[in-house]
């Protein structure tokens, strides 16, 4: 962090953002056919979703398996506001996202009042109950017959349609990343990270943890709703079974975890990897259910061995392999610790201390 404030680091960072943005924005021009372009839209949609998820997952450490439901709500909200209330498409999109955010308040109230496990339970229950409601309330939602969302630009040919939505998704991704970055560097973000580290301790330092969690959950829900609504406008056909699917939420988690939840671009990278991996599994395992097995095993491996994300883990490994001369931050500290020890010339009881902390954490 200290180094990052140096001008060179800053310039390199800005340059990287520009190159990354250029790479994303030039993709439609490079895509040889509409199919590749539409695949790009899907990946961007994943990226927005997992970045939105990461507002909660990354900052607070609360893992939601139900964000798919929030995206579904955004999608159906947008569609219904267009078809039933006659709002213009993009007005409907914003209104729907606001509604999803508003709905996140009571949901968050029930889910976040108590710790951990109940949050996950509520998040899963959210998907299941919304599936039931949207399936059953056929007079409003069309139920299993589905709901057709009118195209916002009816005159556009399909390839053009993809192109326009590619840029819309890219803009939304930019917005989500910007918001994440702003929170990350703010005092609010520091408070959230404190919650992730130790919620009791954060509370004892005077952070109103419940309010913080609720606010960030609402922000996350709003972005997820936007992503879902934009998807509805792009895709055009909604069906409760696909909108309120538990797998959508789990893919968001997988993407964010793969890329690393503590990083601004972690979920984006994860979305690229998962987007490609899903294609690969499908091609590789053809007409069997093994793609589910692959997803499950991958998730289990990440959770067991690389809970901070695969890319951070690989990054750490590369650092150790290729830069033995330049010590990692941990080794620097170890050295400092040795100095410290020498200075104090005193044997300590790190073992007892560590054991004590484990007890305390339970």
């Amino acid at each position, binding site marked *: 962090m200290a180094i990052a404030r140096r001008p060179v680091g800053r310039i390199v960072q800005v340059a990287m953002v520009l190159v990354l943005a250029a790479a994303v924005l030039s993709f439609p021009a490079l895509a040889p056919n509409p199919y590749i372009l539409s695949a790009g839209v899907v990946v961007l949609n994943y990226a927005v979703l997992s970045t939105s998820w990461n507002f909660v997952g990354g900052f607070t*450490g*609360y*893992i939601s*398996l139900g964000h798919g439901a929030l995206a579904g709500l955004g999608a159906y909200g947008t569609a219904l506001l267009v078809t039933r209330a006659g709002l213009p498409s993009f007005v409907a999109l914003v209104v729907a996202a606001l509604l999803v955010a508003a709905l996140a308040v*009571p949901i968050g*109230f*029930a*889910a976040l*009042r*108590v*710790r*951990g*496990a*109940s949050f*996950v*339970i*509520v998040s*899963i*229950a959210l998907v*299941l*109950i919304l599936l*039931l*409601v949207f*399936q*059953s309330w056929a007079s409003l939602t069309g139920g299993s017959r589905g709901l057709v969302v009118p195209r916002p630009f009816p005159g556009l040919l399909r390839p053009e349609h993809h192109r326009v939505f590619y840029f819309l998704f890219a803009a939304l991704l930019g917005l989500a990343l910007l918001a994440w970055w702003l929170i990350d560097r703010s005092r609010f973000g520091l408070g959230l990270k404190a919650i992730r580290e130790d919620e009791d301790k954060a509370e004892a330092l005077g952070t109103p943890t419940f309010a913080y969690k609720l606010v960030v959950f609402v922000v996350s829900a709003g972005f997820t709703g936007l992503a879902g609504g934009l998807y509805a406008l792009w895709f055009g056909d909604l069906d409760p079974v696909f909108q309120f699917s*538990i*797998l959508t939420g*789990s893919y968001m*988690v997988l993407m964010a*975890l793969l890329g690393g939840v503590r990083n601004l671009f972690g979920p984006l990278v994860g979305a690229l990897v998962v987007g490609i991996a899903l294609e690969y599994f499908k091609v590789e395992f053809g007409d*069997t*259910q*093994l*793609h*589910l*097995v*692959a*997803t*499950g*095993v*991958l*998730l*289990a491996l990440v*959770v*067991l061995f690389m*809970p901070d994300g695969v890319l951070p883990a690989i990054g750490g490994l590369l650092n150790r392999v290729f830069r033995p001369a330049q010590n990692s931050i941990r080794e620097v500290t170890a050295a400092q610790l040795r100095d410290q020890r020498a200075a104090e010339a005193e044997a300590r009881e790190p073992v007892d201390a560590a054991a004590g902390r*484990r*007890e305390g*954490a*339970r």
Partner: protein
Amino acid sequence: MPSGALLFQSVILGLLLGGLYALLAAGLTLYFGIMRVVMIAHSAFLILAAYLAWWSHSRLGVDPLLSMIVTVPLFFGCGVLLQRLLLARLRPVTLTMMSVLLTFAIAVTIEGLLGYAFTGTQRRIQLGYGSASFGLFGARIAVVKLIAFGLAAVALLTLYLLMKKTTFGWALRATIQHRDAARLVGIETERIAGYGFGIGLATAAVGGTALALDTTIYPSLHWHWIGPLMAIIVVGGLGSVPGAAMAAMVLGLAQSLLQIPLGTTWAQTIFYLALFATLAFRPQGFFGGRLAQRF
């Protein structure tokens, strides 16, 4: 206004269903009590057991009830291994969250493997006594449903006796209530926790067999079960086995009765309404269970 006969019939169906819910929720509660783990894969194992029962009947010609001779010990072993080899590896600080993801991953893997082995086709055991029934004060009770209920009741009773009357049960309860204290009085809590998981998973084996007797099974069916079960354990008070059993009976009955005016789909929402109401107004649950306050 529904007729008295229909109401009575619904009450009976609700109780029969509630019994099965109670058994399965007991397992789920056990895991939570032992390790604060929400075991998403519980219902996936349930479906796995149901498939094994179906398979042994249709391929080997064995009565599905006999499949329990294999599945119950098998699942017990799986549970012990699951706890010792996988869940115990997770860092205590993030255990609750990461264990959900891990068991979720296991559930998806089981679903995928079932789909690979048996395809996505819906399966149903074809029993000679499948459509047999007998009358009771004007209501009809299907023999298979009664067997399923009986299985659940016997398993629950066994669990109860095990918990209350044996040394192992004493150690398990001590581990659940205060792990550190249990360790201080010489209980090997790690080992006990592993066995507790095994017992929890064994309930899934029994439940799966009971389930297979009278319903269709397919690989993704477990999602259909995990939602109501999670609602039950929260309403019953996380970590309280009797609470879960009570909540299961009440909600099973409510679901069955609500089907009369509301229809199948809306009746299912009772579970989630109860869940949200519980968390919003009484997070510690309605039937005891003090653990919930902290989680």
